[in-house]
């Protein structure tokens, strides 16, 4: 026998699922370490906005040499961005003395929620905020 579910149950389940996704996102944002001494890289803060015709990715790269920025599309849904720091940094620069490690560059790999056409990507840098615009497929 097929039992019909009440609308309120379906909605409740839907809200629970949304909350789970939100919690997962919050945990991911909060607990990810942005400093990677083993690869001498700092993971930059980044945003992805999906617009009707394009995807706009911004990356915050303070103290970077923006001329050294290198963008590589691994596939239609994944982009890797690197930029050298103007100077090699270590934790003592931030007055943290108990940790060791030095950093030469920013590096991030971003999974895009939709497919894009990398051949038509444009890159602009505004006071070390990198803006990457890529048309959607």
């Amino acid at each position: 026998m097929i039992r019909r579910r009440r609308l309120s149950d379906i909605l409740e389940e839907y809200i629970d699922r949304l909350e789970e996704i939100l919690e997962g996102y919050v945990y991911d944002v909060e607990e990810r370490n942005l400093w990677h001494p083993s690869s001498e890289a700092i993971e930059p803060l980044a945003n992805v906005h999906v617009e009707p015709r394009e995807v706009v990715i911004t990356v915050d790269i303070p103290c970077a040499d923006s001329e050294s920025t290198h963008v590589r599309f691994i596939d239609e849904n994944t982009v890797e961005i690197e930029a050298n720091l103007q100077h090699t940094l270590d934790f003592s620069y931030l007055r943290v003395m108990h940790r060791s490690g030095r950093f030469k560059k920013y590096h991030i790999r971003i999974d895009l929620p939709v497919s894009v056409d990398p051949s038509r990507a444009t890159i602009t840098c505004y006071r070390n905020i990198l803006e990457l615009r890529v048309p959607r497929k």
Partner: protein
Amino acid sequence: MPDGEVSIVEVKDVGEEPIVIAGLPDVGLVGLIAVFHLASKTDMEEVGFVESDLLPPIVVLYGGIPKPPFRILRSGNLVVFVSETAIPASAIPKISRAIVEWASKKRAKLLVTLGGIPVEERYKLEKPKVYATASSREVVENLKARGVEILDRGYLVGPYALMMRLAPLYGLTAIGLLAQSFFNYPDPDAAASVLEELGKLIGLDIDIVELREKGEEIRLAARDLMKRTEAELVKMRKSQEYDIPPLHV
């Protein structure tokens, strides 16, 4: 202190009828960066802290000495609330009310909240504009007469929203200064803009040259706190500040 309560502990004299300024972690860490700069330029000293089991179990080490992350600083008649840790979204109602109650008990002349209002493509703006909101129509008109732009319509979400709402109920005059800012990148330029406006408002010459010059270093150093704050902003549905309120017909 009972569970879930907020206590404001004074360790030194906070003076009479202060101007109370809040610089809490929020979008772009605008208020936090602004009050840290203000504190360093006016040689502020620690006069108290906020204590609550609603806050994470954290101390900040300075010269090996543990300090509470949510502190009260003072210079002259300026008293500043500053938090070096993201405030859990669940703690915001009680903490906001405690600050307003405390300011009311101290018969504060004015409560000023410093922060940002997120805008799209902020990176294309050379100098972020500052908008004000106030606890009463009279203060709004006064600000307008001084040439301050008013945040006419929109939503505010978070501790400042509550403080602005509660202030008149406690007999306080409150002004919110909000600079156009990034949502989740530290924004020292926006902090410089709100300090400029604060200076005009309270008649204080605040040197912001260094803040602008050291902007990139500040952006680099504030990334981790920005990331933690972002997680709380998501929980408090802060993105509603991008929403357009319905028109009243």
